[in-house]
């Protein structure tokens, strides 16, 4: 990694992101998710490769797999007796679903093993970005990320424990000694969640950086507006009316962009902007502070008027070009980090999405089976209780949806930089600056950060919609199959008793079949354009 000379001086000012990850790191180290060196992390806050950690992690992985198989074996006895009565389809699906959790955990751990060198690099790059942002007087606050991690950890523990305990108490026969093994069933999801917290928090940090850039640009605009107003105020009152009417005009022009990009309401944004701008003394104060923090910035751009500290960087084209250039470079760097991060976690995310889709469908299906008093695979016994099912489902879906939501938000934040940049160009009303903005916005257009799972599908709200449609249609199909199987059984029974009602039942179920086929038709055709 190239070392920039001036970095040592500002190093104390920028707090590395990894400092906030301490708690998470210790927990994941113990659980065997990360192979990196513990000692190095504690002393220097860096993630480095470690052979011991690797061995420990592999050992943990093997132990988990063994334990899980023992669990399946010991709880599977009921299943084997059930197999005869169960429909084969349910059995096959159950077998597959039993192992998907394990597959997911294996993917997570093996990927972490593969990436162990690169993750450290990633955080190093983020730190460098922070430094560069700091040089541009754009301070990113990392302090609340620790709190966020703690909150996520607590939520994870809460969910895991509540599902585990509730299932154990209500549904597991705990008179036997072997029943303690049930605890193992929570391991795959727990490990997966820890791994995803790493990803989510890092992604969140990236989003913060994008937002910091946007914020800086907006502040530039706000200062310049104020500066202009102040200039106008000097001259005459008639032009002020004209000037003040100008900003809302372009605001309304940009409004649809905001709506499209952020789902943000222009009014609220404007309000927040005003809040910062309106009290002059306050905003001046904050600006002054930031100038104080970086000592060398005060030399340039002497204030135009002596009595007030009103100044605007946007009025100085050559200086602002440097700044905008740097911001664009940092933007690109963050985009690259985002891409790299997405690549590191692409397989775990793919497996998580597959897991989420399958488990969500399966849990609901088994819930349906349980309400019909049919037998279900023993590992999915939590489906017997609707309450536990709700908790488990919200846990699983929460994980998936949060990741998708965050990726979507991040890419939106990255795209919003273009708008902020154009605001600068519009406000400054300077030919030279306008050309710079034009040039840079062409560049920004080509910075792309789209999060996808191995290139198979992008992580955005559209995919979420598609997935939820898919879950519904497959659930209906499964239930339809179940009904058909049930029908066949009943038919055999009625045939045995040679009952006259057989035809009636047949007619009734046929009606049912019709409606579900139609429904099936509707959902599948809804899905075809997207899929």
């Amino acid at each position, binding site marked *: 990694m190239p070392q920039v000379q001036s970095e040592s001086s500002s190093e104390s000012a920028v707090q590395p992101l990894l400092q906030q990850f301490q708690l998470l790191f210790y927990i994941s180290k113990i659980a065997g998710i990360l192979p990196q060196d513990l000692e190095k992390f504690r002393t220097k806050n860096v993630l480095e490769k470690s052979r011991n950690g690797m061995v420990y992690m592999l050992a943990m992985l093997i132990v988990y797999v063994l334990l899980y198989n023992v669990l399946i074996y010991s709880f599977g006895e009921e299943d084997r007796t059930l197999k005869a009565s169960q429909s084969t389809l349910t059995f096959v699906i159950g077998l597959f679903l039993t192992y998907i959790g394990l597959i997911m955990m294996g993917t997570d751990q093996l990927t972490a093993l593969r990436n162990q060198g690169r993750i450290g690099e990633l955080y190093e790059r983020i730190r460098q970005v922070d430094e560069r942002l700091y040089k541009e007087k754009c301070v990113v606050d990392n302090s609340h990320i620790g709190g966020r991690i703690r909150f996520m950890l607590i939520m994870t523990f809460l969910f895991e424990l509540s599902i585990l305990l509730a299932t154990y108490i209500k549904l597991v026969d705990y008179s036997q000694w072997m029943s303690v093994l049930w605890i193992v069933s929570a391991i795959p999801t727990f490990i997966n969640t820890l791994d995803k917290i790493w990803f989510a928090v890092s992604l969140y940090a990236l989003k913060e950086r994008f937002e910091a850039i946007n914020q800086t640009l907006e502040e530039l605009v706000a200062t310049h507006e104020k500066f202009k107003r102040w200039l106008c105020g000097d001259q005459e009152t008639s032009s002020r009316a004209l000037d003040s009417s100008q900003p809302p005009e372009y605001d309304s022009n940009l409004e649809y962009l905001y709506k499209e990009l952020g789902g943000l309401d222009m009014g609220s944004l404007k309000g927040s902007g005003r809040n910062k701008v309106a009290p002059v003394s306050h905003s001046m104060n904050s600006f002054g502070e930031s100038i104080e923090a970086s000592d060398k910035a005060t030399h340039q751009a002497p204030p135009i008027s002596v009595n007030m500290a009103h100044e605007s960087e946007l009025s100085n084209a050559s200086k602002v070009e440097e700044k905008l250039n740097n911001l664009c470079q940092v933007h690109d760097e963050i985009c690259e980090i985002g891409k790299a991060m997405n690549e590191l976690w692409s397989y775990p995310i793919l497996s998580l999405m597959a897991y989420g889709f399958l488990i969500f469908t399966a849990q609901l299906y088994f819930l349906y089976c349980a309400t019909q008093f049919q037998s279900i695979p023993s590992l999915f016994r939590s489906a017997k209780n609707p309450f536990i099912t709700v908790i488990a489902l919200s846990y699983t879906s929460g994980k998936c949806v949060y990741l998708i939501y965050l990726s979507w938000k991040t890419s939106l934040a990255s795209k919003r930089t273009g708008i902020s940049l154009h605001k600068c160009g519009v406000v400054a009303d300077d030919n030279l600056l306008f050309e710079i903005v034009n040039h840079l916005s062409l560049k920004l257009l080509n910075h792309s950060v789209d999060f996808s799972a*191995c290139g*198979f599908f992008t992580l955005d709200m559209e995919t979420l919609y598609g997935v939820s449609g898919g879950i519904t249609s497959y659930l209906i199909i499964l239930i339809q199959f179940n009904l058909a199987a049930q029908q066949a059984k009943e038919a055999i029974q009625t045939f045995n008793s040679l009952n006259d009602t057989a035809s009636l039942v047949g007619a009734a179920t046929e009606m049912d079949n019709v409606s579900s086929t139609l429904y099936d038709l509707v959902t599948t055709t809804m899905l075809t354009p997207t899929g």
Partner: protein
Amino acid sequence: MSPNTWVIEMPTQKTRLHPYPRRISPYRTPSVNRNAFSHEARPPPPPPPLPKTLEHPVFEDIRTIMSVLKASGLMPIYEQLSSYKVGPPTKTNEFYSFFVRGVVHALTIFNVYSLFTPSSAQLFYSYRETDNVNQWIELLLCILTYTLTVFVCARNTKNVLRVMNEILQLDEEVRRRFGANLSQNFSFSVKYLVGITACQTYIIVLKIYAVEGVITPTSYVLLAFYAVQNGLTATYIVFASALLRIVYIRFHFINQLLNGYTYVQQQRRKGGNRRTTAAPSLMEHFPEDSLFIYRMHNKLLRIYKGINDCCNLILVSFLGYSFYTVTTNCYNLFVQITAKGMVSSNILQWCFAWLCMHVSLLALLSRSCGLTTREANATSQILARVYAKSKEYQNIIDKFLTKSIKQEVQFTAYGFFAIDNSTLFKIFSAVTTYLVILIQFKQLEDSKVEDHVQEQPQT
């Protein structure tokens, strides 16, 4: 030039040669060469070997697969005029290709005839009516795909040669300018070739074992030709992927070249030797290099389009065939697994062999398409990373960027859909949907049978 095949005509090479002299700067050559490939995991290309003799064959990397295709008449047996130019085939060779194609069509007609007559009935022995129909359709689809492949190949002979010539020209230009020899290890094509052959042989052996009684010669011919057809179609797909890979390497080369000018590199340079201000020398060659890169990019896009046009229809039919095969085989597997007590290992192996072959081919195709497309679209992204102080350089950058807004290229299957990584995903979700429908049909069929069983004793 016929207006019918109205493509974008590039200015001819001759007109383009004169504007500026080629720069063969000795001090830059090695560094660029290293730069261009330093990010690749693969071993760097061999140091530019100047053509040993004139017989230095073009497209050495994919020689094996080319020879197979040439022998089967799918590729013209071109003449090599120089080490950077191929010419149309000689009369004898042309006649040979023509003859092979004629034989293929004759065999196809014979096969279709025997499919519709009862002589081939012994090949369809399965226990279910719908399965036989499925296999029958599969066979017809295979024949259709291969016939289409042969037709399209025969029609596109000239286009293929043109594309090849363009690639060679481009290579020549790159060589003359940078001394870099763009070649790569294409061992995957040979591996795939071996895999396809093994799979097909295995399938045929399985089939022969499964048939009861003495096999008539007609059936043998049918089976052998079926295997050959499958194998050659698959080979053509591998060939298309290899061509795409070739284009990918070229795109990658110019992208890496451009990458040398990005701000990341500038900073690295600065960090390396701060005392000697290296920045001006870094951007020194940017104007001419950028022109070169833009021209290469245009040419490559044209080659990319050309390849797409050549194998459009073949890809569509192959994807359809492959989709059908995967679906029916998954269905068969499902039926085998869920059927109580009737698991036949023969059918299981047969299904697995088919699935392996088609899934791996689909993966290969979508991966190469995805890679190439991504690399082609990455040029503007990399260019966006070039920060230049002077107005002139900025204009050069803007010129390209303006023209590539919202102009992403895609490798399409006849405009029906784009082929990239997501295609694989879409195909598999479609397979699931159809699988469900097929299973529903099966259940309906079963319930019908049960109803009949029920009704008979009652009445």
